[in-house]
């Protein structure tokens, strides 16, 4: 005689973040191993088939759990699912999973549209039903949501993380709740009680090329040549282009040059960090206003991101004559007229061009902190000697930064057109990590 199995409530409707929903389904599958699991794609499979599989008798009388995923936005399917969940026997349970994210909460009104809201209401009428909302995908537009999510998960594992480090986690891993959850769960097995940025850079699994390259930046800031060469080799083996790595080093040398310039101007370590963070950000009067918070500056600067608005700002607020600018807004309209069918391509091209015209900014505040620390500790403090004035060291450091930058620029050209990129990269690393100044 077969043992009695406690089954989950039915129907269960899951919507929201894909990976969290998938994790839930995997967890339920692990819990109920003694049942027969049947999965159907509601957009492809016929409803007759789903009905047949749900209601057919079986020789072994094993309970069945049907996962009906990929809901189409079709009234007929919604009505069918409601009917099926009402007519199924107690031995058959239904999990409806909106895997294609059709059920979305409007971020402004925080409600569902009428169609899906009615569907949810009808499902809820069943006293055994369960509705699981895993929340919308996090986005760059609302960084506070992502930070709150990261902080919440670390807190669940009794770990503390500050907002800047949480931001770094999101920068490295991305905005996907599932990826964040899975990576943080793994990191929490070994992380200290107070999570540090160094730990995150060392252990987080980067989801993009750009965030992977942050590891190279961090290695360069340690000033350890062997470590940098090891990372370069690792990146090359995993398919990175030598040119991409060289560009990272070039940017690093440029940031170092800027940091030393600020040092020469007499700024403190924290001021240098702030200056580096603001570097390249427009409009300068907003970003360099000491009375505003970082978030306020970011919010106000949002308005000027559009090149047309930037132009308006420069003309109206700064009084620069309009004809001084060659911003190709007029070209944009011309091209649009010529190639109407290729609208998306033109917009993409325009975006790329606008991006090229923008000044360089640091990818993350943490990078500014690392660069400022590198200049202060590894270059200035490490070369301090009795009887030698600080100003002399700073002057020498400034000379070094220019020499390093010029050397790196030459090597970048050599990588692009030369024959031995690995050797060029190693030489670049050697120069960037050599912090000894010829003071005497």
């Amino acid at each position, binding site marked *: 005689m077969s043992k009695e199995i406690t089954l989950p409530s039915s129907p269960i409707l899951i919507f929201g973040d894909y990976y969290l929903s998938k994790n839930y389904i995997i967890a339920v599958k692990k819990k109920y191993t003694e049942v027969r699991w049947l999965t159907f794609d509601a957009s492809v499979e016929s409803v*007759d088939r789903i009905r047949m599989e749900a209601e057919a008798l079986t*020789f072994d009388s094993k309970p069945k759990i049907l996962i009906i995923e990929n809901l189409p936005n079709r009234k007929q399917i919604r009505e069918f699912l409601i009917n099926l969940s009402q007519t199924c026997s107690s031995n058959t349970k239904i999990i409806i999973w909106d895997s294609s994210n059709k059920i979305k909460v409007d971020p402004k009104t925080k409600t569902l549209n009428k169609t899906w809201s009615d569907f949810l209401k009808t499902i809820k009428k069943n006293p055994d039903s369960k509705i699981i909302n895993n929340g919308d995908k996090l986005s760059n537009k609302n960084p506070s949501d992502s930070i709150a999510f990261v902080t919440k998960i670390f807190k669940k594992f009794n770990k503390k993380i500050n907002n800047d480090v949480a931001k770094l986690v999101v920068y490295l891993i991305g905005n996907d709740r599932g990826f964040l959850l899975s990576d943080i769960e793994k990191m929490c097995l070994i992380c200290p009680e107070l999570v540090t940025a160094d730990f995150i850079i060392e252990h987080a699994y980067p989801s993009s090329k750009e965030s992977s390259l942050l590891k190279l930046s961090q290695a360069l800031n340690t000033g350890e040549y062997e470590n940098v060469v090891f990372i370069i080799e690792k990146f090359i083996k995993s398919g990175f282009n030598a040119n991409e790595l060289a560009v990272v080093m070039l940017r690093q040398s440029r940031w170092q040059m800027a940091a030393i310039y600020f040092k020469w101007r007499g700024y403190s370590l924290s001021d240098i960090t702030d200056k580096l963070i603001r570097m390249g950000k427009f409009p300068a009067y907003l970003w360099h206003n000491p009375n505003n918070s970082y978030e306020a500056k970011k919010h106000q600067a949002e308005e000027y991101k559009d090149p047309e608005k930037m132009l308006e700002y420069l003309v109206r607020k700064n009084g620069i004559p309009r004809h001084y600018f060659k911003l190709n807004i007029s070209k944009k309209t011309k091209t649009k007229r010529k190639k109407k069918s290729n609208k998306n391509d033109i917009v993409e091209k325009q975006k790329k061009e606008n991006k090229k015209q923008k000044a360089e900014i640091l990818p993350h505040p943490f990078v500014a902190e690392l660069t400022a620390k590198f200049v202060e500790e590894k270059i200035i403090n490490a070369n301090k000697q009795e009887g030698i004035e600080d100003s002399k060291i700073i002057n020498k450091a400034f000379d070094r930064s220019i020499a390093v930058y010029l050397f790196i620029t030459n090597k970048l050209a050599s990588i692009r057109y030369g024959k031995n990129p690995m050797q060029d990269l190693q030489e670049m690393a050697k120069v960037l990590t050599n912090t000894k100044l010829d003071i005497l």
Partner: protein
Amino acid sequence: MKLTIKQDVLMGALKIGAVPAISDTAQLDTSNLSLIIQSVKITVGKKFIVESNTNLMAVKYSIDATPENGIDVKKEGSALIPAKEFLDWVKIQGNESTIGMDLNILSTPEIINPMDDLGVSNDNNRFSIKKIGSMRFASKDTTKTSGKWELDCYDPEQVKSVNFSKKGNKHFDIKAEDLVKSINKVLFVSLDKDVDHVLDHISIQTYNDQLYLATTDTKRCAIFKVPIMGDIVNTDSLLIPAKLLESVSKISIKENTLGIYYNNELGRIFIQQPNIDIRIASGEKDNIAKFPGIEMLFQKPYKELSNISKNAFNKILISASLVNNLVALFTFNKEKSIIDIKAISEEGRYKPSVSKAEAKTINEDVKGIWGVSHLTEVLKHIKGNTVLLHIPDNKKSIKITEPEDDNFQYFALSIPSSVYQNK
């Protein structure tokens, strides 16, 4: 190793001995040892032996290496040759040709390390493959058409030969052609793939001193009484992957008798035929119990419900399947001797359809919901012109038999679809 061999003899041997090496399991293998798994081992001495194996199946084919058998051995030896390429080349040489095989051995074996690209250290040569040389082939036929080719050969010592003498307990003997017929009768019900490894297997069970093959997809069950040679030696049930048993039926020589053995320790089925040794994976012991017992179906009393012409029944089933291939409402009218099938689809594309056929006999008024495809599929496996339908008292299933062959029985469970309630 050097020999000449008739193309048809070599082709016959490869079609049997190279089956595991050319199976999907081997050909889709992406492990570092795939070159070995995809190769067939040829051994030439007093016997000409062709063998290959995967973890699911091992086959060894051997014949006397004599001129009477079309084999002329000049130098004994052994080598592993890529099976698919070898088979493809031999196939196109034509029946009339004679093939010369000459193993050209390297003075120093070449070590191939498939882990090189991955940068994995391989200090103890655990993952390396030893290439010992190349096999040169030359074919020539009576029309003086000839061809030459060369394939890499690997060290045959790298493959551990299966010990076919550890067969375990004998279960029964069966004529190869009867096994083929039995498998063909029940195979259509088994699933292609089942994560629990039960429903994609064929169960061999005994009941009242008779041996049966059974398959099920949980909603229906096909059972065939197997005509065996002699007595059943061991009455324990066996569970064999359906695809493997189908492969066995294809490579067996039809006129010969097969001996079926089960080695409990290894959990492997051994099948022996003159010149052919086969070892295949068996279903796990726990899974044998998970397969429904056939006595449950045999002990349930079924009354004959109807006797109907296969063609007429097929026609109305196909009409119903145009609307709903999966579920339909069947009404048996005793007085009018008519079966009608009502099909309704929730898809919304087709209107409900009703199709009727006159039966030779109907013994009871019955209304039931069954799977349309469950019934159309079984009709393809019924040779005669008449179908007998049987029903139990609770009417939760239907049994189909054919008067011409009482070895075959098919059971389909009812589908109490709410769409047809109160219709």
